[in-house]
């Protein structure tokens, strides 16, 4: 269910990093294709070894979280990636990752020493 997105990908190109972050191979591919231009659902569906309905479902998942938008062009529905929203989601998860790495470190310290360890560095609060 989850993509094997690792914490630190040694790749500066943000688009690549974001693509890595998408969980499902088909959805990732849809987002990649729809980054450079709009595609109809039927033209997308022709590219994958699955039913039109299955591809439509993937598009719906992406649309629901706002990673792609769908617009009507005549009889066709065109799918386009909202790159800013993909970036925003990835940024939030990056920040949450940093918060949780510190939390796990503190849990580890707490289990290792019953004494409080001295505060060392500042970081974001995250309720």
């Amino acid at each position, binding site marked *: 269910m989850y993509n094997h997105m690792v914490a630190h990908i040694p790749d500066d190109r943000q688009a690549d990093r974001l693509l890595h972050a998408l969980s499902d191979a088909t959805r990732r591919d849809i987002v990649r294709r729809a980054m450079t231009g709009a595609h109809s659902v039927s033209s997308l569906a022709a590219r994958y070894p699955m039913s039109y309905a299955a591809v439509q479902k993937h598009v719906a998942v992406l649309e629901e979280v706002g990673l792609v938008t769908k617009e009507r062009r005549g009889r066709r529905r065109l799918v386009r990636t909202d790159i800013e929203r993909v970036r925003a989601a990835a940024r939030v998860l990056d920040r949450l990752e940093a918060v949780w790495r510190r939390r*796990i470190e503190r849990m580890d310290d707490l289990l290792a020493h019953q004494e409080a360890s001295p505060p060392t560095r500042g970081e974001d609060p995250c309720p």
Partner: protein
Amino acid sequence: MPVIEILKDPSALSMTVVAELAAPLERSWQLLADPRQLERWWGPPSYPATVTEHDLTPGGHVVYYMTGPGGERPRGWWRVLAVDPPRSLEVEDGFADADGDPDPNMPVMTMRFTLEEAAGKTLLTSVTTFPSLEAMQHLLAMGMEDGIRAATGQIDGILGEAA
């Protein structure tokens, strides 16, 4: 490093952390079940948490505030959705207003903790899920502001030590 794996899935608006804790299951559970221990890992050192209410039963609440370097007190709450001591806990995780009541204008996340014993150690899995991309953007805008404040507090601390 006890963190084994971090899986980020923007398309599902979720993040999973898997960590191996060097303690048996019951001891590790106390990180959640004992409010004094919870407050020592939940908040960063620059924003230590104080838990004022702690009821890990279904429908129960955990209420806390954090104390920032400038004396500000952001408040938050958990509401217990499901609990199976010492193996799992699922809560809603939200922000509170100055009275400690849930702030309806702020997003509510879901957090699920799962603990498994593994040869005297504990495998901890924590899954955080956001309700919407809007909620994530809201948190990003807010977190950045708080992050700047936290960083400023830290710089003040360093300068204070050097003086």
